[in-house]
């Protein structure tokens, strides 16, 4: 619940009470009364996810306790043509789990069992409500762990991770969620069970596993996930390097990669971010520098020793004014704690902030940061920058005060310009937080009508009547026409074949 208020608070439409009673009764025919909620005070807690600027009280909340119930809920909703929004832990940052006032909010929180861990095959079969970190904790005694580690990993659920194709700070080396999932059980809105993937490394037919990852609950509801477990690295160390110039830090990142090193993590924070973090968690970051890099090496003891030596040399040659290597695991974790606390730390120094998620080609970093500085002046708002530098995923945090008239609108315009610029330099509007409700308009800037049509066709292949999470992730062409900011890709193409109003 980091960014408190944004402009688009959905007005609570008056609930169709007769419809509500009918849907609840249909669900209570096979579920305990306590698992089907509709009283205002019971459903209110589900009105938003991690993007709390958008709120909508759902018509009904269903809390299935097993896969059979999920299947029956979906069948009932399909039959009654009730839209369904699936929700895991509700930590998502793009409003993907924003409920619908005429829909069922399907919470998978009760499906939180680790079904099986196979230490020899290095897999875990889990229900969607299992927390990301709980998987690694359960696998730890076996010397194994689940690699993707979004900053919210203590709270976020694995089902949500799959729906968003979540990343984390170790993506460059270990991949995103899509690279670490072997199989899914998912149920379509028609109630059909899809067994996707398998116990091997690939499966027959189309790669539906890739398609399901990041599909934001639009294609099917996931009821079971088989994840890959990796051996815990024997050793890990972090090199922290400080720079008096952001461009030098950017060049240092490129130099590390050019030397043939794929660090386990490679993060950058600018001065505004390090200042906020230092006041909050005292991670030991210098605060009088333009930018710091955290570069982690993991592997065997020999490998890490060798790599850390090389990274130090590269940082020095790249003009670092201060280099520190974690001397213990406690110090390494302290360095990371600072990075992982960056969002809440910024939340302490500003009444509100707005987190962006563009990904850009690394070589355009300095240019993008210069643009952001320019926009700070234009909109008279400050921005703290946190950056997954290894994979080009930028999280500018725009600081504002929603209580000051006009700041909110300026913040949104600022954010939109950052996204537009990200597309212009060859990047994307979202690297890991998803489109959800938040960036659905911005999809019109990244994709043309033809691609959006294909997205809708893919959706229809799974959900003919558009009942699963409607209105999220993929805008209608009409919506794009109304938004009026079509396709800035490469800054030239227009949108010739679209009806306008």
């Amino acid at each position, binding site marked *: 619940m980091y960014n408190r208020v944004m402009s688009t608070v959905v007005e609570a439409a008056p609930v169709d009470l007769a419809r509500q009673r009918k849907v609840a009764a249909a669900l209570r025919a096979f579920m305990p009364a306590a698992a089907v909620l509709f009283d205002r005070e019971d459903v209110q807690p589900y009105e938003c996810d991690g993007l709390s600027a958008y709120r909508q009280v759902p018509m009904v909340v269903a809390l299935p306790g097993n896969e059979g119930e999920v299947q029956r809920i979906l069948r009932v909703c399909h039959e009654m043509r009730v839209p369904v929004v699936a929700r895991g832990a509700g930590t998502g940052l793009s409003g993907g789990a924003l409920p619908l006032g005429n829909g069922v909010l399907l919470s998978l929180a009760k499906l939180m069992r680790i079904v099986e861990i196979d230490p020899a095959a*290095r897999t875990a079969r889990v229900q969607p409500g299992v927390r990301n970190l709980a998987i690694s904790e359960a696998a730890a005694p076996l010397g194994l762990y689940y690699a993707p580690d979004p900053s919210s990993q203590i709270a976020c659920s694995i089902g949500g991770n799959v729906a968003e194709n979540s990343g984390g700070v170790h993506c460059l080396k270990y991949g995103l969620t899509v690279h670490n999932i072997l199989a899914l059980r998912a149920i379509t809105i028609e109630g059909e069970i*899809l*067994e996707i993937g398998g*116990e091997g490394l690939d499966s*027959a037919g189309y790669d539906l596993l890739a398609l399901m990852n990041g599909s934001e609950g639009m294609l099917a509801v996931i009821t079971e996930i088989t994840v890959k477990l990796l051996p815990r690295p024997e050793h890990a160390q972090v090199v922290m390097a400080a720079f008096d110039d952001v461009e030098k830090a950017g060049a240092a990142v490129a130099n590390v990669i*050019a030397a043939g090193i794929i660090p386990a993590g490679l993060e950058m924070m600018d001065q505004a971010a390090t200042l906020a973090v230092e006041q909050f968690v005292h991670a030991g970051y210098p605060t009088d520098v333009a930018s710091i890099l955290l570069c982690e090496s993991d592997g065997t003891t020999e490998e890490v020793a060798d790599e850390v030596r090389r990274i130090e040399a590269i940082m020095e040659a790249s003009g670092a004014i201060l280099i520190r290597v974690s001397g213990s695991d406690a110090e390494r974790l302290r360095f990371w704690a600072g990075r992982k606390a960056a969002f809440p730390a910024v939340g302490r120094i500003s009444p509100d902030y707005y987190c962006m998620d563009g990904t850009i080609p690394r070589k355009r970093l300095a240019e993008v940061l210069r643009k952001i500085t320019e926009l700070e002046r234009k909109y008279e708002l400050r921005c703290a920058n946190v950056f997954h530098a290894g994979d080009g995923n930028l999280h500018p945090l725009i600081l504002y005060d929603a209580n000051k008239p006009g700041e909110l609108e300026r913040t949104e315009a600022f954010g939109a310009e950052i996204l537009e610029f990200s597309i212009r330099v060859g990047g994307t509007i979202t690297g890991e937080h998803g489109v959800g409700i938040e960036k659905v308009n911005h999809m019109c800037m990244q994709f043309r009508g033809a691609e959006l049509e294909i997205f809708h066709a893919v959706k229809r292949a799974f959900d003919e009547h558009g009942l699963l999470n409607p209105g999220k992730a*993929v805008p209608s062409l009409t919506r794009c026409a109304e938004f009026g900011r079509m396709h800035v890709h490469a800054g030239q193409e227009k949108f010739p074949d679209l009806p306008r109003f």
Partner: protein
Amino acid sequence: MQEVVDQLASVIREAAARKTALRIRGGGTKDFYGGALRGEILDTRAYAGVVDYEPTELVLTALGGTPLAEIEALLKRHGQMLAFEPPRFGDGATLGGAIAAGLSGPRRPYAGSARDHVLGVRMLDGTGSELKFGGQVMKNVAGYDVSRLMVGSLGTLGLLLEISLKVLPLPVSELTLRQERSQTAAIELMNAWAGKPYPVTATCHVDGALYVRLSGAEPAVRAARARLGGDEAADGAQFWEALRDHRSAFFRSGMALSRVSIRPTAPPLGLHAAELVEWSGALRWLAGAPEPAAIREAAARAGGHAALFRGGDRTAGVFQPLSAPLAKHHRRLKASFDPDGVLNPGRMYPDF
């Protein structure tokens, strides 16, 4: 180059209008793979060339008709590689063909598959419409992951015009160890190693010997070598290349070849065929295979699937049949991308 795209698109549009089949083809090195070859050949090789490559970005973008050999040579000059080690069944293999087939080589369990390395595609769908998905960045969750859906779809959903791939640095040092082991013992060892943080990047058991490749920083490889045991193979690099491209003796027997992708810990299949194990146990090759049905049953029991890879009795199809709900969604997806069913019909399953 746009005129080549226009030409390809107009051929597809015409075929769609007449509802006649097109057979998308690059170097034709994988004509043996998959189901029926139907329709007029649509050659992609005129659309070739590396579009963008900056080693420090770890991204390469090339047109679909670009020879794989050209891309790999370019990467090698810059100390990088396609870490999924796509097999090359002939000199003419193209990037588009490699991605459409979606096959990966010995490094796959440790570095990821072809699909894992695809970042974006530009393509023509079955209506001749030019589409662009994904991009040149490592993380991108805007829209459904259509780029990765294309990988392994055997040209049935679209013609791949341009592909952006994640590339990785070549390992600083690499060596291969060999030890005599039974197949059962080798499968156990491969899995045990995979559960430890060793720099293993390939494993293979064939003819009573277990081979393992170690890659990475010199000290790490040296340390792991001492822990894993076995003798260093002098021709290690050639061994893995031959395995990757199916040039080793096992693959040249001339017998029907089946590819069985299963749970890595599954015991030997024992199907009265010569068996080669790789991917830490997750991939088994059977030469001189018995009944395809028996292989499929064994694969399903081991949590996976089997394909009749080369030769053999193909009357019962080449890929593991899909469950009814999956088959239905495959047909619907096919219809979304190729409503008139013109692109490589029958190449994956007989009914689409």
